């Protein structure tokens, strides 16, 4: 009798401990996210509360000169740089990704798909510094030959990023296309359409919410990528005059300068504000995905 009693208690304890651990882990995610937002927000607003900058000084001015007298902390160059480089990457990457997704779902023979999938997985797996290294070793000398100048440029950043976001967009677009009911394809075949007509006029429009999600996620990844971009974009603090001109991005300036500044100085505060801007932009992307993405049926 005694033995049975302890056994039952152990089982209860196990049940209780297991459940508690699961609940704690679940809520830890909330705790970490909230802590991160609070920490970065507190540091990020010090530019306005402690160093006395105004929001328009920060967002609308292209004058970034922390060592000048008076020092200037306009972040427009970095914001514009980040936008141009990620939109440029999207312009190259999105059509290719969509083509790949269509190809994998409707056109490629099975063996080709089973070749393409691991290729995409490997492309995701290549570390960003290796992409950056490839950019510095192959792409930058090539651009130097074609356009003159140093080769470190907006275009170099765009090309490197476009390769990095290609697998992201492809896999999400491919999932979206796979979710379109086969009956759509059959119905348009039944009406006498060719495969291309069915794909371009029926399948892709039907999957456009999912494809848009992939595109926005790709854009978000491009926006947040730091080292690969920093290695090839040249990091000159000026607005780019063309595709072949070097510039800087939010992530690249954070990567380079945070270690050179002393905690609490206006320069340091301004960098934390840039980090906060990055955070807010990535939240903005989530909001967009929630708006355009397909309704989840769970």
């Amino acid at each position, binding site marked *: 009798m005694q033995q049975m009693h302890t056994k039952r208690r152990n089982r209860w304890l196990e049940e209780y401990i297991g459940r508690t651990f699961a609940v704690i882990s679940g809520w830890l995610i909330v705790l970490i996210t909230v802590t991160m937002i609070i920490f970065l927000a507190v540091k990020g607003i010090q530019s306005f509360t402690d160093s006395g900058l105004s929001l328009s000084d920060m967002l609308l001015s292209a004058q970034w000169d922390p060592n000048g007298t008076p020092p200037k902390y306009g972040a427009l160059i970095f914001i514009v740089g980040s936008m141009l480089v990620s939109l440029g990457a999207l312009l190259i990457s999105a059509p290719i990704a969509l083509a790949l997704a269509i190809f994998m779902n409707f056109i490629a023979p099975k063996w080709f798909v089973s070749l393409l999938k691991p290729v995409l997985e490997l492309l995701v797996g290549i*570390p960003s510094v290796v992409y950056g290294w490839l950019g510095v070793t192959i792409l930058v000398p090539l651009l130097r030959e074609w356009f003159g100048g140093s080769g470190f440029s907006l275009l170099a950043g765009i090309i490197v990023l476009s390769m990095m976001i290609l697998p992201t967009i492809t896999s999400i677009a491919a999932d979206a296309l796979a979710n379109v009911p086969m009956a759509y394809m059959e119905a348009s075949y039944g009406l006498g359409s*060719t495969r291309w007509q069915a794909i371009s006029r029926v399948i892709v429009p039907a999957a456009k919410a999912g494809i848009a999600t992939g595109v926005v996620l790709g854009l978000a990844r491009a926006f947040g990528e730091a080292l690969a971009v920093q290695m090839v974009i040249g990091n000159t603090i000026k607005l780019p005059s063309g595709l072949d001109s070097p510039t800087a991005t939010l992530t690249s300036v954070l990567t380079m300068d945070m270690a050179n500044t002393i905690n609490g100085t206006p320069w340091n505060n301004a960098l934390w504000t840039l980090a906060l801007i990055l955070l807010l932009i990535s939240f903005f992307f989530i909001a967009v995905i929630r708006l355009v993405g397909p309704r989840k049926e769970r």
Partner: protein
Amino acid sequence: MTARMIDKVWTGIFYAVAAAVIGLLMFFFAVVLSKGAGFWQPEFLFGRPSNTQAGGGIGPQLINSFYMLVVTLLLSVPLSLGAGIYLAEYAKQGRIVGFIRLCLEAMASLPSIVVGLFGLLAFVTLTGWGYTLLGGALAVTIINLPGLTRICETAILDVPANIKEGSLALGATRWQTLVKAVLPAAIPQIVTGVILSAGRIFGEAAVFIYTAGLTTPMLRWDADWSSQANPLNVFRPAETLTVHIWKLNSEGIVPDAKLIAAKSAAVLMVAVLLFNLAARLASSLLARHFSGGRRARRGRGERSKAA
């Protein structure tokens, strides 16, 4: 042009794009492996780096990368398994789960440099540790957590309902069912996911610059446990291989900085290849071992039909 011809042209374009992407990956591997030829030499892989002369190795960086990976997995696998179990089994659907999912999405969308800067605030400055391997591991855990949680949750949800129902019907408690019936069936998917995210931790760089630092103390295996020179001490700065490549590129003063960067890139590429192969191998071996293949597939089919 007739519709039929347009169709043919587009088919051709699709084939060309796909072939180009495959060609691109092969080109990347060819470039990295040829420029980094010789990376397999033991004196490079395990040798000490030199600050002034050519011919240094990447021994400490390689140790740091692997140790970082181990510590990160020790932190993130239990946590994400717990969170995945909570989301799949215990949490009531509704507002709270919706909120946790929103947090997961927010976490997943954060650029790794931003997480690194949070790490600088929380694990470097606030704790007073300075740049440490543990700080880096904690920060990269934050990056890793959303993906791994999702993997664990889907793996658990993909287990056929009849396995769970059978166990509950035999009088097992919820936790017993989970540990003895559901998790074993979910293990193949979880292991594959963990190996793939291990590859990503190994390749992560931006998050380490401001958490694990850009230096490594002179490591000695006979050093005291509390000494910074002890390789296993987690409270020491630890420059990983990825950060090493970045540093060589931006401020390398060694005469053969370029060659070391190329060889290190080759090591990383080979590691990525190995992680992917391992994930593939693990998923097919474990799936055969745990579920006998056919039955699991039939179970899943029933589930999707019911949905």
